[in-house]
């Protein structure tokens, strides 16, 4: 069970003499149940890449396989693929349109051919998973707060019961509390329902805490594909392309330089605290 991207490239404006690549010769495989994060600065190609995964964009070159089948073959149903591989874009305002929250979340399931009853049951379940209170179901989606809108937008995809969930910068514009809320919910989804999560982000702290695999993109290519620890170990390379590691990683590296026998692969405050306490108590 996997989505496989095989040597794909994407060219803007193929008519132009000088080919400008948005994506250049990228290959990767994402298996069910993974929590992958794609990082890169604006224009690195990360948003383009994820659109191949459910056939919203067709690569200029290369193939995309879902469970071994080429998704751009004639008899492959893209509609079915989009049910299995859900994508939530950055702005929830781009998808909310119905008169109330529940109806809006039912839009996807209904398009998949479910009866109104089934669709409603799935919508209710998805909203519950996204921690939306029942009292909001009858409200207009436009009355909700930013964080709530985001959760309803995700529920709108979840209601189709996807196996893969792609989130394009799901925390942009939210305050820290709203951000933590969303990320926690996504982590729970990944754990409890084994839904693979592909999180596109430029926040290193988010990525470090949640993902177990990181893809770093630059200029339309994947330049790193590894565990968070290994990726942040090469923080100097990240800086060269305008990214940075979490703050505590820098603390660890600096301390190491000053002669602390510290583990440099620290990414979270919790880990840093343990390491520093270990060293300081050992000293005394």
């Amino acid at each position, binding site marked *: 069970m996997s989505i496989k991207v095989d040597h794909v490239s994407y060219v803007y404006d193929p008519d132009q003499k000088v080919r400008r690549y948005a994506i250049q010769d990228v290959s990767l495989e994402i298996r069910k149940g993974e929590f992958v994060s794609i990082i890169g600065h604006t224009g690195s190609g990360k948003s383009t890449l994820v*659109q191949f995964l*459910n056939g*919203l964009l067709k690569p200029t070159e290369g193939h995309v396989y879902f469970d071994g089948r080429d998704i751009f073959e004639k008899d492959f149903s893209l*509609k079915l693929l*989009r*049910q299995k591989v*859900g*994508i*939530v*874009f950055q*702005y929830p*305002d*781009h*998808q*909310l*349109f119905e008169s109330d929250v529940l109806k809006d979340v039912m*839009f*996807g399931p209904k*398009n*998949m051919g479910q009866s109104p009853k089934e669709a409603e049951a799935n919508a209710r379940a998805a909203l519950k998973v996204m921690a939306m209170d029942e009292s909001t179901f009858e409200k207009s989606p*436009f009355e909700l707060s930013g964080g709530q809108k985001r959760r309803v937008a995700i529920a*709108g*995809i979840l209601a*189709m019961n996807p196996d893969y969930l792609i989130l394009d910068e799901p925390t942009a514009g939210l305050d820290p509390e709203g951000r933590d809320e969303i990320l926690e919910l996504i982590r729970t989804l990944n754990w409890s329902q084994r839904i693979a999560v592909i999180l596109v982000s430029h926040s290193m702290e988010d990525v470090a805490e949640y993902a177990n695999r990181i893809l770093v993109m630059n200029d339309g290519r994947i330049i790193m594909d590894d565990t968070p620890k290994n990726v942040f170990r090469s923080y100097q390379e990240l800086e060269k392309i305008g990214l940075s590691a979490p703050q505590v990683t820098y603390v660890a590296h600096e301390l190491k330089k000053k002669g602390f026998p510290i583990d440099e692969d620290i990414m979270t405050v919790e880990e840093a605290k343990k390491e520093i306490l270990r060293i300081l108590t050992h000293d005394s």
Partner: protein
Amino acid sequence: MIRDITLGQYYEADSLIHKLDPRVKLAFTLIYIISLYVGHSFYCYLFAALFLAGVIALSRVPVHFMLRGLRSIVVILVISALFNIFLVDGEVLVRFWKLRITKEGLVTAAYMVVRLILLILGSTVMTLTTTPNDLTDGLEKSLSFLKIFRFPVHDLAMMMSIALRFIPILVEEVNKIMKAQMARGADFDGGSLIKKAKAMVPMLIPLFVSSFRRANDLALAMEARCYHGGEGRTKMYPLKYQTHDYLAYLVLLVYLACMILVSKVL
């Protein structure tokens, strides 16, 4: 689709035509269109075509760029030609079934097509050599006399330039919304007309909501930057006539006079 419409697309080049004041170019378009209705003889159209060819040559815009604008009116050309060919009375040349083709019909159709082509090309010269901003400025200044009738010239010009800025943004937004809905299984092509119209709802509502929000934000931003209507406003680059602009006006008048002469004499 959007790429095919030449109208409203500026072609960057360093030419005399580009340098002309937008008001001159507006006048050129107007006079040129009028001139096409002055005479209906072969020589009139030949003269008009030669004049336009001269202007296009001066503008240094590649000819195929000019012709691209014609693609969008091919259908109109064909329909109006057919109407004229079959419906004009006169000396019958061919007759089959219930239809007949007359000599007069053919001639009228040919003139009609030529006139339409010249008309489109004439206005394309203006839009290809004038930035949308200059065009707006030119219109605002040329029509400023309407202010005496309380016609909101400045406001309309401001609306036009804001539209120019936001059209590309909204086009991109439509694209994004459609993708977001397609990810939820929405189907935008295929199906009957009613089905298609219905499928548009999930695209149109988010587009309206977002446009209203943008409008609201923009109004606030304009107010914060001291916008209070056209009264007392200055311009960074106010339109000012140069010698070549006066000369261009002269050329236009001479052209119109010649056209009238040609229509009367030949």
